[in-house]
Every structure is written in structure tokens, then in C-alpha cells.
């Protein structure tokens, strides 16, 4: 008896939960309202069956529960009833399937005039490509990937020269324009998903997958990865800005073409050396750092990392927090560099400095190395097993760098001083990762392990700084 009542209550609870649940489909922002329609229909049909069958079950239990002297009815089968039930079920199934297949046919039928754009996935970031004026994407191949050519475009393919490259996790798309989304992956499986758009498709290395969509609402939407792609899967975020077509066109015009990204910059180590004089005051002539001045070692870092951080300091992405005194000093110092070329030059110069041992701080680190080693596994996927840094991951070298500085930065990431700015894509990932070090000892343990890493590995330092070109 109790079980019958429980079934009725559970049916009731389920229905009420459904009705009052604040969690349902996010407001749609694409043309796929028909999918929502199919879902609504499915809710009604399956909901009805759920309620009906379970209430009948409860009723049967109440009515035919064991009573003294009762005997069950003997009925091996009832052909008529079974045929009826089969027929009704079949009709119900067809009622779900027919609209479903109808909508799927629309999904499969790519509009001819759809504007193409490409999403590129890699561990753990997004980037985007538009075909440029000629409307044709240049050829790509895995063997062309390098630091200077992160999209892997064939440099000799004329069709690729005008491709617009968006080396950021944020893309702008025009509203009310049918889009053909091409998905490409550089490494493992990913899935470019915007819940408000409803449709998605895996990106598979070695092939290009596609679907189409028409954004119908302007605004900014979160992009999530929806196919497990390694331990940074949950950090693989991006943003889609849906804007009026004119705004989109203006934005697209501001994106560099492939040819532009391949032009030689005027940056030179020689010019950088001039600028470096200012830096040397704190960071040392060899970039060896100076704990007394709270200046970390910078020799041994790769150019792209230094360049990115200098830009961050200049634009207030980093060093803006009043709690970050030395960051604020650095933000001030970065303004000494007059322009982007100067930043590129000084970064080139610093990257060319020979590796020197970091100046150790006075404090002894007494972290637990074996625990640190376990935790470091999480760091190693981006910073490398030997802490050598990996350029595709945008992860700087850790081994042989100033460990007191690493420790401070981990604290900063954890406390929201660094990496929380919305344009600091990798900083945000680092915040999430630093947050796993959530007891007082954890940071010390990891740093203690990093201190033991052998930074001098010839082959791996190639990976760290050699940018493949």
C-alpha cells in the first residue's frame, strides 16, 4: 500500500518539479525554434505516458494487493489488448518521430547562401577564421602549424592569404544571417556549443564537420566545449557576440588577414636591447631577477609570453589591482615602452638572453615534494612534464624560474588579483587551476616540486621557446 502511495506522490512530485523548476531551456537565440517545438511535443507525449502508466500501476497495486483468501486471476494473455497496446504505442512513437525527422531534414539541408565561418578547437581554447574577400578558405594542414602560423594555413595557397584570422576565444557574428559553421580541431575531439543556439557538432581532428544556424538575437553568449577533451575540458570557454550586420562587418574588417599576420615585424633584438636598460635596473642585466626588488627572473621565458604580459600590464588587464603593489609598479614601467613594436622588440631581446640561474630568495621552501608532484600532474598538461612551458598551450616555463615569484602569483590567481580580467583568457584558466590548490600547504608543495625540475633539457627547451619558424 505504501508503495502505491509513494508512486502517486512521486508522480506528483515529478510533475510539480517539472512545472515549477526554474531550470529549463535557455531562451533561444537562433532559428532552431522547431527543435524547442519538438521538445515541447515530446514533453507532452512522454509526460502523459509517464503519468498514465504509473498511476495505473499504483491503482493496480492498491486494488489487487494481497488480502486474506484472495486469489489471482488466471490470464496467460489477451491478444486483443496486446494488439491494441502495440498499435497505440506505435502511433505514439510515430507522432514523436515524424516531426523529429521533419526538423532533422531542415537541419541537414544547408542553405546555399549561408555565410561560412570556421571554428578551430585546440586544447583548451577556441579561435575562428573567416574566408575573406574571395569567399574561399585557404587550405590547411597539420604540418603547417607553428607559433607564427597557429591556424596551420598553407602559406603558398593564394586563397588563404585574405582569410581573416581571429586568434581569440571571442567571435562576432551577424544577426539574421544564415551561417555555415565549419568545425576543425588541431588535436583531440572538441564540441563548439552555445546552449542558446541549440545545435552543435563535434570537431574531429583530420576532418571538417559542419552545420548551419541563423542567430536571431543580438547579445553575448557563452561558448562551452561539449566533448571531453582532456583535463582542461571545463576551462575551454569562449564568447560569441551576435551583432547587427554592419557592426559585424566593421569588426571583421579589423581582424588581420593571414597575409598580414605573416608580415615581418620591425621588432629586433637590437632595438629591444636599448629599451631593456630600464628593465635591467630591477630584473638584472642578464634577466636573472632580484628578489630584493621583488623582480622575478625573466630570462628563459619565450617571447610570446613576455609580449602578452607587457600588453596586459599596459592595458590594465594585469597590475591594476591596488593589492598588487609590484604589479602596479610594473604597469607603470610598461608605459615606458612607446608602442607595440617596442614591446615586441624588448620581448625578442629578453627571449634571446642566455638562461641564467634564478637568484634564490632567502626563505626556505619546506613543501612536501611527493605531494607536490601529484598535484603538479595537473600543471604538467600545459606547462610540460619538466616545467619547460609549451607554446601551443600559452603556458610559460616554470622550471628554473624564481620560485618565490611563482608562489606569489599562485596566491594572486587564487585571490582574484591576477587573471580575473575578462579578456585575460589564459589568466582565467590559471585562476581555475590555482583554485584546486586549496589548502595552505598545497602551493608550497607544488613549488617545492617545481624547484626539483631539471630545466636544462635541450630538446624540451626547443619546444618552450622555439616557435617553429
Amino acid at each position, binding site marked *: 500500500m505504501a508503495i502505491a502511495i509513494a508512486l502517486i506522490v*512521486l508522480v506528483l512530485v*515529478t510533475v510539480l*518539479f517539472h512545472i515549477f523548476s526554474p*531550470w*529549463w*531551456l535557455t531562451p533561444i537565440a537562433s532559428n532552431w525554434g522547431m527543435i524547442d517545438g*519538438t*521538445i515541447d511535443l*515530446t514533453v507532452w507525449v*512522454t509526460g502523459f*505516458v*509517464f503519468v498514465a*502508466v504509473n498511476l495505473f*500501476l499504483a491503482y493496480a*497495486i492498491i486494488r*489487487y494487493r*494481497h*488480502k486474506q483468501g484472495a*486469489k*489471482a*486471476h*488466471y490470464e496467460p494473455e*489477451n491478444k486483443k489488448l496486446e494488439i491494441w*497496446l*502495440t498499435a497505440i504505442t506505435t502511433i505514439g*512513437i510515430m507522432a*514523436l*518521430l515524424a516531426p523529429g*525527422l521533419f526538423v*532533422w531534414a531542415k*537541419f541537414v539541408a544547408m542553405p546555399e547562401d549561408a555565410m561560412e565561418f570556421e571554428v578551430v578547437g585546440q586544447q583548451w581554447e577556441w579561435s575562428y577564421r573567416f574566408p575573406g574577400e574571395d569567399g574561399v578558405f585557404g587550405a590547411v594542414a*597539420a*604540418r603547417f602549424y607553428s607559433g607564427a602560423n597557429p591556424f596551420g594555413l598553407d602559406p603558398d595557397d593564394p586563397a588563404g592569404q585574405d582569410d581573416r584570422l581571429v586568434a581569440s576565444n571571442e567571435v562576432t557574428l551577424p544577426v539574421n544571417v544564415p551561417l555555415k559553421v565549419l*568545425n576543425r580541431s588541431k*588535436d*583531440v*575531439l572538441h564540441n563548439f556549443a552555445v*546552449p542558446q543556439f541549440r545545435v*552543435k557538432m*563535434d*570537431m*574531429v581532428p*583530420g576532418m571538417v564537420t559542419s552545420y548551419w544556424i541563423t542567430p536571431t538575437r543580438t547579445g*553575448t*553568449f557563452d561558448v562551452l566545449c*561539449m566533448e*571531453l*577533451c*582532456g*583535463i582542461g*575540458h571545463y576551462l575551454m570557454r569562449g564568447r560569441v557576440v551576435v551583432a547587427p550586420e554592419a557592426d559585424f562587418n566593421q569588426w571583421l574588417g579589423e581582424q588581420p588577414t593571414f597575409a598580414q599576420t605573416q608580415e615581418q615585424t620591425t621588432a629586433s633584438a637590437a632595438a629591444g636591447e636599448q629599451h631593456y636598460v630600464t628593465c635591467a635596473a630591477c630584473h638584472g642585466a642578464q634577466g636573472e631577477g632580484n628578489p630584493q626588488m621583488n623582480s622575478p627572473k625573466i630570462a628563459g621565458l619565450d617571447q610570446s609570453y613576455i609580449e602578452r604580459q607587457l600588453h596586459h600590464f599596459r592595458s590594465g588587464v594585469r597590475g591594476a589591482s591596488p593589492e598588487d603593489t609590484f604589479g602596479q609598479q610594473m604597469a607603470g614601467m610598461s608605459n615606458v615602452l612607446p608602442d607595440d613594436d617596442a614591446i615586441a622588440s624588448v620581448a625578442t631581446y629578453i627571449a634571446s638572453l642566455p638562461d641564467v640561474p634564478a637568484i634564490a630568495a632567502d626563505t626556505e621552501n619546506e613543501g612536501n615534494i611527493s605531494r607536490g608532484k601529484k598535484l603538479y*600532474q*595537473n600543471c*604538467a598538461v600545459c606547462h610540460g612534464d619538466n616545467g619547460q612551458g*609549451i607554446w*601551443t598551450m600559452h603556458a610559460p616555463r616554470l622550471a628554473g624560474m624564481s620560485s618565490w615569484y611563482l608562489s606569489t602569483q599562485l596566491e594572486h590567481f587564487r585571490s582574484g588579483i591576477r587573471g580575473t580580467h575578462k579578456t585575460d583568457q589564459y589568466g582565467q584558466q590559471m585562476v*581555475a587551476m590555482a*583554485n*584546486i590548490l586549496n589548502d595552505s600547504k598545497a602551493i608550497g608543495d607544488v613549488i617545492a616540486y617545481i624547484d626539483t625540475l631539471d630545466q636544462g633539457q635541450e630538446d624540451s627547451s626547443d*619546444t618552450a621557446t622555439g616557435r617553429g619558424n
Partner: protein
Amino acid sequence: MEQVAIADQHDEHHEPTSFITRYIWSQDHKVIAVQYGLTAIAVGLIALVLSGMMRLQLAYPESFTFINPIAYYQFVTMHGMIMVIYLLTALLLGGFGNYLIPLMIGARDMVFPYLNMLSYWFYLVSVLVLVSSFFAPGGPTGAGWTLYPPQAILPGTAGFDWGILLMLISLAIFIVAFTMGGLNYVTTILQARTQGMTLMRMPLTVWGIFVATILGLLAFPALFVSALMMLLDHVVGTSFFMPALLSQGQLTDHEGGSPILFQHLFWFFGHPEVYIVALPAFGIVSDLISTHARKNIFGYRMMVWAILAIGVLSFIVWAHHMYVSGMHPWFGFFFAVTTLIIAVPTAIKVYNWVLTLWRGNIHLTVPMLFAIGFIFTFINGGLTGLWLGNVVVDVPLSDTYFVVGHFHMVMGLSPVLVIFGAIYHWYPKITGRMFNDTLGKLHFWLTFVGAYSIFLPMHYLGMLGIPRRYFANLTTDFIPESAQDMNIGITAAAIFVGLVQILFLINMVWSLRHGKPAGGNPWGATTLEWQTPQTPPAHGNWGPTLPVVHRWAYDYSVPGTAEDFTPQNVPVSPGHDTEDEEART
């Protein structure tokens, strides 16, 4: 093959005498069944603890240093793989299959007892290899239970080196073990049925196990093939599944392979696997319902045909797991149709369970409660299957918590409820003692209501678009903060339900000594396993002569009989015959 089979000859000298031959290197199907069962439950408890830790992380992110992303993805993977393969498959087929097949069809043992013993030992080795990956450098694999390449064997995924290797090896050993067991089950059912036990007189439990075993024998090779090829990609550097790609900034040596090929092979195994678990559960639950409602199973023939239809169809629906995998979208039409067709025989089974209760004489015993609980959760999980099978509905929902809620409801919770019901149902036969009824009922209520409140809300988180396999949800513009409250609620329920299982373990152990003696047939059941001369059944099961079957397995409450059940081996009484015949038509 030269082993002396004891299915047809009762040889007193065959009976093992020492502890070792009786309980360790045993060739008795009942002992092997218990070995399988205990091993599966032990490894299942590990998987249960892993799920608890995952839930802790999701409810209280950034609170536990030892649950970091690497560890989390390892928990996810090992939880899934253990539960699906090493617990559910092993327990339902290796455990219940082994125990029940010979007893239910009136055989003395499996036809190849030695092979049967080997099967268990191979299974144990596969479990040990799997568990050893926890101690391997880098820990177990964190590739997700689907083990998709390329990431499964590339840095960036936990255990990409040793963990995945041990996982693949363990799976290969498991498949060998399963094949040895499966050959035995199929041959025993085909050949060793006692006199009068025609196929259509077999209890549905045997039918479910029979068809599931055939599915397993044909489907596990697909897993073997994909595991072996991935092993070669990983160890030898072939390119079956690996295209040219970048790994941590370096171009790998692989070229030209197809990750989708792996997915096809994996799911060609993976979908039948769902039915390898579900069909024995369907069969068992039919018998529980019929026995405890004192009524014949409604539409026996339809039930058998439905099992067969599901078995056949299960081989042509696999790609509904791959609607968004990047395979050609045209396949969506075909697989949506086949998937929804399979719902028809499945629905018929549900109707027939309910209709068996209708006009029955329902004894709300612990096994019956679990069976009813199963019907409820299976209806829920089956219906959400219609959502995900219908390709357009799947596209927004795939890889969200909706999927997690669905498959836990339909192939996690539902079979587990059946397994509990079955353990309670056959416990008196296995041990000779009754379990504690109060504890059993308490266990049911807390598990049933608790587990439902774990998995129901997950569907709604999924509707919202919360992705599965996320270490932490961080912040997004579309996930309200209330979702995190729900996560805490789900975790509380999950940990509660996990702890409740202690009641079950206590009951099982306590009743072994202190339970009331059960007698041979405490439920008044018709099937042969309840008609053994001794309880627990002795070696050889049947004493000097094999039982002879005179009727189908569901003669409950037949009009004109004094008792409300007539066991299968009761001969036809001449006087009753005609009257009986009339009443039946």
C-alpha cells in the same frame, strides 16, 4: 573439452571435499556465481565511492585538494567503466547467469565446468589489472568510459600512458573471460535442459540471460577490436584511429586515421551492452513480479518475442550515440527510426509487467518492492530515451546532464534495483536463510526514493545546458546560481544513498547466521530452482534423478488447483486434466 560434464550423470566422487576445491578452485556453478557476485560487488563499491567523490567536487568545488581535475576525470572514467562492465555485466551474467541457468533449466551444472571456473579467474585478473592502474605511474585513465581517441592516448588526459594501457588490457582479459562464460551459458541452455523443458517453458529470467549472452558474444568482439587497435596506436604507433594532429605543440607521427571509426566500433559494442545489462534485468523482474503477485506473467509469448526483437534491433541502433559526432548527418534519419522502433517491444514489456500485477494477488515483499521500483524508474528512463533517440531532440541535449540523468535512470538505477530485488529473492535459496525483512524494506525505501531524487533533477540541469564531464561549472551567463544549490542537493542525496547500502551489506552478512531458516521454497515459486531436494542446493543440484518438466513456468493461481502455484516438475494428475484444460481456455 575433455572435462567430464556432470550435466547428465550424478557422480558422487566428483564432489570436491577440501575447502580449496570447494570454495576457491571450484567448478560448481553455484560457487562460481557467488565468487562472481562478491567480486563484482566489491569492485562496485569502489565505483560507488568514486561517484561520491565526484559529487563532493560538484557540490563543493575548490574544497578538496585531492579532488583535482586529473583525479576527477579518473574518478569519472573508472566509475563508469567499473559500473557498466565489471559490476553490471559481471553480476547479471557471471553471477545470476551462473547461479540460475543450471538450476532453472534442471541441469546439474554448466556443461563445461572447468571452462566456467577459468572464466571467473580471468574475470578476477581483469579486475585486478584494472584496479592496479590506480597504482600505475600517472594513475588510471581519465579519458571517460568511452575512451575516445585521440585524447585517450595523448598527454592532456590523465593516465594517457599507463592508465589507458592497463584499461585496454583489462578489457581484453574481461572479454576473454566473458566469452568463456558465454559459450557455457549458451551451450548449457541449448543442450542441457532437462526433459520436458522446452525453450518456451523456460522462465523469462533464462530467456533474458540467454539472449543477453548471445548479444554479448557477438558485441564484445567489437570492443575487443577497438581496444586492440587503440593499443597498437598507442604502443606501436600505428594510425588506425589517429589522424595527423598536434600534441602539446608537436606534430605526432600519426597520420590519416579516423577517431570516428573508433566510435563506430565502440558503440557497435556499446549499444548492445545496454541490452546485455537490461535483458537479464527484464527477465529477472518478470519472474519476481509473477511470483510475488501469484499470477502468471501476462503475455509470456509476447515477452519472449519482445526480448528477441530487442536483441535483433540492438545491433542496428548504435549510432544514436553519435548524432553529434560528426558522422554524416544523413545517418540520423536511419538511426532515429530504428531507435524509436525499439521502444515498441520495450513498451510492451512494461505493459505486460503492469498487466501481470492487474488482477493479481500482490504480496508486497522486499523483492516485489524492488520490482515495482524498477518499473517506475524504468518508465522514466525509457521515456527520456525517446527524447535522446529522436535525433533533433538529442542535438541540444547530448553531452549535457540530461544524458547523465537518462542513462543513470535507465541503466544505472533500474538494473541495480532489479539486482537488489533478485538478491533478496534468491537469498533464501543461496544461503538457506531468510534476510531481515525490516532492514530489507528500509533499504528499499531509502534507496528508491533517494536515488530518484539524485537523477530526476539532473535532467533539468541538462535542459539548462550544463555540460557533463565538467570538473567545475565556473560562471556562465545562462546557469543560474540556483543550479549550484541543486548540485548540493543531488550530492547530499547521492552520499545518503551510498551510505544506505551499508544496511544492505549488514543484512546480507547478519542473516547468513541469524536469519530464519528459509525452507526450500519460501515464496511458493513454480520454477525449478525452488524444487531442489536440498537448500542450499548440493553439488549436482538434484540428488539422484533430474527433475522432469511437465508445464510452463507460470502456473500460478490456476483455477481448480488447491494451492496458488504448481511447480514445473509436478506431473499432470489424470483426474484433473480435463477440468484443468477447460479452465485454462
